């Protein structure tokens, strides 16, 4: 089973931000691996550190951030790479799927967007070849009139089409890894389903790994192979997606599932609890909100293995 090669290896990632209000510890010791062709989802509430993880993978954090840990991608140490080396990796090896349709330059046509990316990474390509490739790409991403789309500007497209244009842009150089930062955010249910279908199709036809940042567990459930639930910059539970979402062992996981619209959006049972738990250094960050551990003395944050690849960081979970 363990034949597949590891594409992305994040090891003990810590990220802090120095702000005027003091040190903000956004990510506190996250480790995970993504194998070739695998979809790894990172889910959690807003402010849990999802986007920070995603930006550290592409080494695009603000100057005010201090990072420690290792991020290895395909033999590159991402955190140590220079700007020029990074530029060669972007799109060609790691592509970022942006979350908003505003990620398209309003003054350039879809074709120009694709061509400029092709030109940047394959300077030897001729104009005609670039055009052919782009049109072929648009065709595979389900545009009915790819040659026409090639010539249109973003404002002429609908929201769903823009989203699909962004998808084709992310996959245009056939990257090894795609980082999708909440791709379904802000889309209406119909578009969301449509995008999800497209993503599933891509997953079936291409051998591209994906890190999927989301707080939509339904999307994660259908798309991801493995999932990590994070809270306050730490993993709460990590394992095969179905196993975690269907037989979750951590109280936070069930809390997230209960908060889904389909399940009646039952949020925290006790709303009066402070959302920010006391920051004990090695204590369980979730204890303040946990229905089992709330009143007890602080306990440690430690991992328990449910089986070989399902880990839960909870004192009360049965191993």
């Amino acid at each position, binding site marked *: 089973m363990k034949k597949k090669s590891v594409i992305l290896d994040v090891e003990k990632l810590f990220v802090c931000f120095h702000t005027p209000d003091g040190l903000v510890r956004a990510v506190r010791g996250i480790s995970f691996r993504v194998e070739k062709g695998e979809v790894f989802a990172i889910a959690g509430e807003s402010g849990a550190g999802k986007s920070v993880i995603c930006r550290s993978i592409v080494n695009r954090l603000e100057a005010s951030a201090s990072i420690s840990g290792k991020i290895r991608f395909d033999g590159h140490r991402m955190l140590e790479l220079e700007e020029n080396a990074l530029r*060669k990796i*972007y799109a060609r090896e790691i*592509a*970022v799927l*942006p979350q908003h349709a*505003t990620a398209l*330059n309003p003054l350039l046509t879809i074709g120009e967007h694709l061509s400029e990316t092709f030109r940047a990474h394959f300077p030897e390509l001729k104009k005609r070849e670039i055009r052919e490739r782009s049109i072929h790409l648009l065709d595979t991403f389900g545009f009915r009139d790819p040659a026409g789309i090639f010539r249109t500007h973003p404002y002429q497209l609908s929201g769903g089409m823009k989203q699909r244009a962004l998808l084709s842009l992310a996959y245009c150089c056939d990257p090894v890894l795609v980082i999708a930062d909440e791709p379904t955010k802000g889309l209406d249910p119909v578009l969301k389903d449509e995008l999800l279908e497209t993503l599933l199709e891509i997953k079936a036809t291409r051998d591209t790994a994906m890190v999927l940042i989301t707080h939509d567990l339904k999307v994660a459930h259908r798309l991801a192979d493995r999932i990590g639930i994070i809270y306050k910059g730490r993993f709460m539970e990590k394992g095969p997606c179905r196993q975690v979402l269907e037989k979750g062992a951590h109280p936070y996981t069930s809390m997230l599932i209960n908060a889904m619209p389909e399940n009646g959006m039952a949020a925290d049972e006790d709303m009066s609890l402070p959302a920010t738990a006391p920051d004990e250094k090695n204590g369980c960050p979730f204890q303040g909100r946990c229905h089992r551990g709330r009143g007890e003395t602080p306990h440690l944050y430690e991992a328990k293995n449910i089986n070989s690849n399902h880990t839960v960081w909870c004192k009360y979970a049965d191993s």
Partner: protein
Amino acid sequence: MTLLKKPYVLFLLLLMVLAVGGDSFAPNDPFQTHIDQRLSPPSVDYLFGTDELGRCMFSRLIYSVRISLGLAASILVICLVTGTCIGMVSGYFGGLIDEILMRATDMIMALPSFIVAMVLIGALGAGLGNMIFVFALTGWTRYARLTRSLVINIRNENYVVTARLTGLQSFYILRKYILPAIVRPLIVLGTLGMGMMILMTSSMSFLGLGITEPTPDWGAMLSNGTTYIRTAAYLAIFPGILICLTVLSFNLLGEELKGEKK
């Protein structure tokens, strides 16, 4: 095309035509002296009268459009290009480059540009080339400042961030993503700056430090006219009106362009 209906736009277009057509529109040779008809008042032959050497004022004014507008426009273009480049690099890359470029800009901004221009012209000598040089030397700073602040706004737009993440070259992003987005406010400031440039260069010529005889220039003609203000006031009045109308038109156009954005 509501812009074309505005009188000041039509006036500016007329000036452009005169600047290009130049002497072919002039009824008389602007350099030909008629010593027997010096300081004659406006007449059918000489629409705006003649100056102290008997040269046709009307022709000289028409001819001088090219000189005065051309001078102001070339200074402005140099300032705009330099300022935009410096501002874009400074705003986009930030950090140390930004710090160095902006402190240099501050230093130049701290100098009283007109005095510096006067001193430099005094040292280098008058003339078209020197005029362009001394005004361009201090004029680019306001464009650099504006560009920098515009770029800083645009730099964090989602599509620019995405462009960087698709591995595009910085200069490509500057050219294709940033420049088109900031060009409009720059045009507005440039139009407003044109009026100022005309005033500056005319003032310089008025002081006798700019364009020199026999080349006609609005400022120089105005200055010349003041000598005869009691006997032949039209010598100063016509260039004065021309300067006034041109500057006013450019300012109105600038305001119009600024408003149209909303």
